[in-house]
């Protein structure tokens, strides 16, 4: 069997093309892996399918391998190593190798072997496949744009909800502050304190009046005592007169007795006078008794009643004052509690504001990813255009694809990176030393 691999020449431009494709895929793979895990799931299979197909077809120069691939379809080319098909002794799927061998003929050895097709057909086929690579880059670019749109939409929704939450919290805080504002509370407390001060003033006035009333009562008591004493003194005078009258009547009786018959009339008169004097003394005693009784009533009973009343009033005033003090203390406690609530609400608002603001800032990741994906899109487009041009060059050797190789074009894209991480990943993927950039995040010139 003719060794198709040893007889098929490998032009250097084909080798360079393979190396370029491999390098481009490696660089793009590195960028996608570092940028977006979800994009990886979309991009890598497409890249690997396309790269695997191209490499397989490009290296399968043996007639037997190419015919077997054509019959088995693209999936068979992906499944097995393209290089192994052209090497003698390679073991692969028997049915595919058998079909390939059975369908070929060797010019020098008609039994088995592989025939070599003209190079032009091979090149044309490779060119066609390379031209189809652009389709994969288009799909990749569309997928990345879709990711950008979805993430932008999600970021917008997050910000919208955050703004709504913030507005609600602000409204609530404003309401609480307005209804429980320290100024407002102080104003109300001032009014209450003023009213209570008025109540205390009234109580003091009542107490003063009570004292004045007690003083007047004592004065009246003294007056009554003095008048009563005057009456008793007068009665004493009346008693004295009655006693003197009695004595006088006795003397008259004695003289009347001395006068004999002529003095009988005087005896009778003297006796009547003694009766009158006795009645006067009796009345005087009765009056004294009654006056003393009145004095007792006024002095003792009314005094006691008055004192009891004053005592009761003083006690009531004291209770009212005590109640006012308790009310004041309760109000102070309430106001203090109100202030504690306000302070708590204000401190919690500050505590909530910080995370809200941090979340608002964190959605900036979407813009960074957008810029990175846009850069990847430019890379994918550059690679696709270059590979398409390589394909055209294979078809027409006079086709000029420019001085720059794909590697040089990718290096040129390096200057378009927008983050230090992108530059580091590129350098690592191309096995160049990574220069850690020192920069500050915030700087005023």
């Amino acid at each position, binding site marked *: 069997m003719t060794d198709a691999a040893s007889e098929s020449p490998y032009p250097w431009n084909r080798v360079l093309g393979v190396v370029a494709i491999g390098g481009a895929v490696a660089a793009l793979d590195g960028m996608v892996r570092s940028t977006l895990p979800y994009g990886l799931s979309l991009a890598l299979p497409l890249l690997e399918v396309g790269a695997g197909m191209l490499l397989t077809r490009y290296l399968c120069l043996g007639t037997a391998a190419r015919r077997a691939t054509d019959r088995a379809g693209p999936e068979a080319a992906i499944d097995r190593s393209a290089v192994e098909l052209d090497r003698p002794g390679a073991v692969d799927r028997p049915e595919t190798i058998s079909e390939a061998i059975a369908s070929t003929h060797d010019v020098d050895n008609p039994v088995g072997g592989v025939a070599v097709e003209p190079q032009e057909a091979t090149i044309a086929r490779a060119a066609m496949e390379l031209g189809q690579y652009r389709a994969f880059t288009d799909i990749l670019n569309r997928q990345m744009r879709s990711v950008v749109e979805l993430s*932008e939409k999600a*970021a*917008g929704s997050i*910000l*919208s909800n*955050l*703004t709504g939450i*913030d507005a609600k919290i602000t409204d609530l805080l404003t309401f609480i502050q307005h209804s429980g504002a320290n100024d407002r509370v102080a104003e109300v407390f001032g009014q209450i304190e003023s009213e209570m001060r008025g109540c205390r003033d009234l109580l003091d006035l009542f107490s003063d009046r009570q004292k004045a009333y007690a003083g007047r009562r004592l004065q009246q008591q003294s007056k009554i005592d003095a008048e009563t004493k005057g009456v008793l003194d007068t009665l004493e005078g009346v008693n004295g007169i009655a006693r003197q009258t009695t004595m006088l009547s006795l003397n008259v009786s004695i003289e009347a007795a001395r006068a004999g018959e002529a003095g009988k009339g005087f005896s009778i008169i003297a006796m009547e006078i003694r009766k009158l004097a006795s009645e006067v003394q009796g009345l005087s005693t009765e009056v004294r008794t009654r006056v003393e009784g009145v004095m007792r009533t006024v002095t003792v009973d009314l005094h006691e009643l008055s004192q009891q009343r004053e005592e009761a009033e003083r006690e009531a005033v004291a209770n009212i004052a005590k109640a006012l003090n308790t009310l004041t203390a309760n109000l102070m406690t309430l106001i203090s509690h109100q202030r504690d609530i306000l302070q708590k609400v204000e401190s919690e608002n500050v505590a909530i*504001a*910080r995370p*809200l*603001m*941090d979340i*608002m*800032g*964190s*959605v*900036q*990741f*979407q*813009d*960074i990813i*957008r*810029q990175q994906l846009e850069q990847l899109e430019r890379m994918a487009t550059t690679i696709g255009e270059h590979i398409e041009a390589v394909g055209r060059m294979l078809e027409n050797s006079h086709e000029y694809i420019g001085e720059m190789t794909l590697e040089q074009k990718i290096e040129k894209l390096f200057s378009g990176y*927008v*983050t*230090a991480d992108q530059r580091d990943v590129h350098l690592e993927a191309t096995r160049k030393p990574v220069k850690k*950039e020192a*920069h*500050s*995040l*915030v*700087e*005023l*010139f």
Partner: protein
Amino acid sequence: MKPVLLVDDSPTMLASMSGILKKAGFSCETAGTGEAAVDKVSDGLSPCLVITDYHMPGMHGVDLIGKLRRLAPTRFVPMLVLTTDSQPEKRSAAKAAGATGWLVKPVDPTALLQVVKQLVPSH
């Protein structure tokens, strides 16, 4: 109270920045391109501060700063460049064009407000 002018081609960035600044009590005006920002200033907008992205389609942030420095309302207004790029050459270019400061995305809201309050102390 004069507003802060935010210029960025990313709606997410404009929403994020304006949300942060409004929460701190600033009012904001936004523009999606450098050209739109220039038009707003030419039409009478007088901002107290300009914050612009570096990379924008059409007029770049540095070009925008240069243009705004030639307009009367913004000749002496502080201008910050907010960008993902931290390359020293671009930073120097912004400074040469008249930028007042340089912020690298993603910028911490607290750091942003600190810088803004430093540049606009009268707010």
